[in-house]
C-alpha cells in the first residue's frame, strides 16, 4: 500500500466509518483490551510517573544535541562494519532500499513491522520494480493480503474480525485444502506461521524498522512479540534498517528507561517478548546472522520540526496509547484519518509531514478531552499542539469557505450525541478510577489536561446523560 493520503476527505471518511456497523463492532476490541491492560501495568510499577519524566528529559536532551548524536551513531555503525545511508525524503529512502536489494539480486524481501516503510510507501515501490515484499507481522500480513494500510500503529488489523481474516486466508492460500477447519483463531495463526515460515527461509533481504538507535554503540533496536522481526533480520544475507532521525537515544542506560514505558503503554506488558539489539553484520566465527547490515536514516520533514512548536512530537515512541484512549479513534478507527498515522499522534504529526493542505482537517478530529496527553508516556502535549495547528489553519485561511469547513467539525462531533456522551463518560470513569487509587485530586494525571481545555464539572460518578438514562430506566 502506498502512502498516498486521503486526509482531505476526513469528514467523509469519518461519516462512512461511523455508519459501518461491522467496523464499529470490531473496534470495540480497542476499548476493551488496551485500556485496562495498560492501567494494570502502570499500577504495578510505582515508578511509572517518574520514569515518564526521566524519558521526556532523555528525549529532549537528545533532540537538542541530535546532530552530534547522529554523528556519533554513524561512526559507530561504520566501525562495526555496517553501512549508513541518509535520505531526505520518501523518494530517496525508497531508492536507497531498492538499490541495496538490486545489488544482491533480491527476488523476495521479508519485512518486520515498520511504520517508516509505510510512511515512504516502500512496498508499492519494490513491487513496481519487480521485487516481492512480504509483510511478516501477522497483522501486517493480513492487511497486505487485503491491499489495505494499517489502521493502528501497533495493531494494524484491529479493524478486522476473525471471519474476515478467515475469508482472506481462503482466498489467498489456495494451495491448502479448501475443506480445512479455520474456525478457531489458533488455526488461523498456525496457518499464517506455516505459510510465512517458507517465506522467511527464502528471502534475500530482510527490512525492519527500529524502535531506537543508540549513539553509544551504533545499535538498532526492534521490539516485537511474534519474533517475526528477528526472523526477518537474522535469516537473509542482508539486513536493512529504515529509521527516522528522532529514533536516536544516547546510551544503553537511556534506552532502558524508555523501554520500561513502551511495552506497558502499548500492550500492558512489562516487556514485549523480544527486545533485540543489533550492531553491524555477522562477526568472524558467527554461524548465522546477516552478512550485510545497512541503516537508512530518514528525515522527511522532521529536522524542520526541531526548535519549533511541534518539536515535542519528536519524542513519540509509537506506543499507540493516545489512540487507544481516544474517543474519536474508538468510533472511526484508523483508516478515516487518511494516512498511516491515526489518532491524536497522527493528527499532530501528519500535517507536519505531508503538509496542512493535505492534512489540515485532522487536528479537528478531537473532543479535546485530554486523555491522550494524560496517557502519553512521553508527556507530549497533544491537545495543545492540535490547537496550534487549528490556529495556524485559521490564520492561514481567511478564505471563508475553508474556515467554515474547519468549524464544521465541531458541529460534526457535537451533532453525534453518542460520540460526545461516550467521550465524557470515559473521562468520568478514568477520573474516578484514578481518584480512588490515589485519593488526591491534584495529583491526578490527566485532570490537568482536561481542565485546561474543557470545562468539566467535578465528577459525581456519572454524567448527566447517563444518570438521566438510568433514572428513566431506559437503555
Amino acid at each position, binding site marked *: 500500500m502506498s502512502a498516498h493520503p486521503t486526509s482531505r476527505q476526513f469528514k467523509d471518511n469519518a461519516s462512512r466509518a461511523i455508519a459501518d456497523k461491522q467496523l464499529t463492532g470490531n473496534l470495540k476490541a480497542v476499548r476493551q483490551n488496551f485500556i485496562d491492560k495498560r492501567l494494570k501495568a502502570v499500577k504495578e510499577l510505582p515508578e511509572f510517573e517518574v520514569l515518564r519524566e526521566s524519558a521526556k528529559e532523555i528525549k529532549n536532551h537528545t533532540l537538542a544535541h541530535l*546532530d552530534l548524536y547522529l554523528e556519533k551513531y554513524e561512526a559507530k555503525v561504520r566501525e562495526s562494519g555496517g553501512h549508513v545511508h541518509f535520505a531526505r525524503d520518501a523518494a530517496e529512502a525508497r531508492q536507497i532500499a531498492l538499490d541495496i536489494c538490486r545489488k544482491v539480486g533480491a527476488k523476495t524481501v521479508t519485512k518486520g513491522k515498520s511504520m517508516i516503510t509505510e510512511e515512504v510507501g516502500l512496498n508499492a515501490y519494490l513491487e513496481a520494480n519487480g521485487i516481492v515484499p512480504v509483510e511478516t507481522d*501477522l*497483522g501486517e500480513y493480513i492487511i497486505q493480503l487485503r491491499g489495505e494500510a494499517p489502521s493502528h500503529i501497533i495493531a494494524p488489523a484491529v479493524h478486522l474480525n476473525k471471519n474476515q481474516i478467515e475469508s482472506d486466508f481462503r482466498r489467498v492460500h489456495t494451495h491448502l485444502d479448501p475443506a480445512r477447519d479455520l474456525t478457531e483463531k489458533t488455526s488461523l495463526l498456525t496457518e499464517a506461521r506455516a505459510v510465512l515460515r517458507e517465506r522467511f527461509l527464502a528471502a534475500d533481504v530482510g527490512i525492519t524498522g527500529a524502535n531506537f538507535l543508540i549513539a553509544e*554503540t551504533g545499535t538498532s533496536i526492534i521490539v516485537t512479540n*511474534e519474533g517475526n522481526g528477528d526472523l526477518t533480520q537474522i535469516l537473509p544475507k542482508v539486513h536493512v534498517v529504515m529509521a527516522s532521525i528522532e529514533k536516536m537515544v544516547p*546510551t544503553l542506560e537511556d534506552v532502558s528507561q524508555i523501554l*520500561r514505558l513502551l511495552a506497558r503503554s502499548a500492550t500492558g506488558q512489562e516487556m514485549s517478548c523480544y527486545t*533485540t539489539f543489533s550492531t553491524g553484520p555477522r562477526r568472524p566465527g558467527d554461524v548465522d546472522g546477516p552478512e550485510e547490515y545497512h541503516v537508512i536514516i530518514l528525515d522527511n520533514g522532521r529536522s*524542520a520540526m526541531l526548535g519549533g512548536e511541534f518539536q515535542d512530537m519528536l519524542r513519540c515512541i509509537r506506543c499507540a496509547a493516545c489512540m487507544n484512549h481516544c474517543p474519536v479513534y474508538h468510533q472511526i478507527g484508523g483508516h478515516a484519518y487518511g494516512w498511516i498515522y491515526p489518532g491524536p499522534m497522527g493528527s499532530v504529526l501528519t500535517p507536519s509531514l505531508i503538509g496542512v493542505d493535505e492534512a489540515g482537517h485532522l487536528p479537528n478530529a478531537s473532543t479535546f478531552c485530554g486523555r491522550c496527553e494524560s496517557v502519553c508516556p512521553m508527556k507530549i502535549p497533544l491537545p495543545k499542539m492540535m490547537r496550534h495547528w487549528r490556529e495556524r489553519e485559521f490564520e492561514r485561511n481567511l478564505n471563508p469557505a475553508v474556515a467554515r469547513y474547519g468549524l464544521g467539525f465541531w458541529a460534526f462531533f457535537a451533532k453525534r450525541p453518542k460520540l460526545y456522551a461516550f467521550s465524557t463518560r470515559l473521562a468520568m470513569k478514568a477520573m474516578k478510577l484514578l481518584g480512588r487509587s490515589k485519593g488526591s485530586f491534584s495529583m491526578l494525571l490527566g485532570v490537568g489536561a482536561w481542565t485546561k481545555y474543557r470545562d468539566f464539572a467535578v465528577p459525581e460518578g456519572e454524567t448527566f446523560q447517563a444518570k438521566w438514562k438510568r433514572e428513566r430506566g431506559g437503555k
Partner: protein
Amino acid sequence: MTEARDSIFASIRRSLAVKGDERIRAGIVEDRLDRAPKGIIPTRAQVDHGEKLELLLKKLEGVQATFARLENAAKIPAAVADYLRSNNLPATIRKGDDPRLAGLPWSETALEVSDGRSDGHDLNAISHAEAAIAETGTLVLTSGHENPTTLNFLPDNHIVVLNASDLVGDLEAIWPRLRKKFGKGEMPRTVNCITGASRSGDIEQTILLGAHGPRRLHVLVVEG
C-alpha cells in the same frame, strides 16, 4: 548521498540554531556517552539474591514460561530429557558449541544431540543465557557460534540455561556486564532480551502463543 547527509545535518542545525562545532555541546555529549548515567531504577529489583530469584520465577510464570531448578550443571541433560518427555516431544536437541553445554553428560540420556545453527527444521533447541533480569523475567542471550541466534527463534521449543549467579535485578545492570566482556561502546552482533514465548494479539486482540518464534519457553536455573 553525501549531499543528502549534508543537507539533513544542515537542516537540523538550522532548526536548533547551532553550528555543530560548539565546544560546550560537544563536551556535554561526550560526557553523557562516557558516564552513561543511570536513571530511575524500580525498587522491586533492588533486593537480595534470593528475592531476585523468587521475582524472576514469578515473572517467568507471568509470561507463560516454565522452569526447573537444578543443583548443578551436570543435571542439565536429564532435565532436558524429562522436559521433552513430559511434553510428548521427540528426544532431539540442537545446541551451539558453548563449552558450558558441550562438557555435559549428554550420553547418559537417550537424547539425540546435534550442533550448530538451525535451518528451520529443528523442533527443540537449547541455549545458554548470558544473564537474566529479575525485574521483568527477561532472559538475555548474545549471538555467536556458542549460542547461534537462529536457535532462539526457529525451533518450536526453546530451552534456556541460566546460571543463577548471572541473575541481575534490573535492565540497566546488564550493560556494565556487557561492557566488561566486550569493551566500552562495543556490543555483540545481537543481544536478545527474551520475555516469554512468541505470541500475537493480531486476531481480535486475543493473545495466542506460538506466532513465529518458539511456542514454548523453558528455563533451567542452575543454582550450584
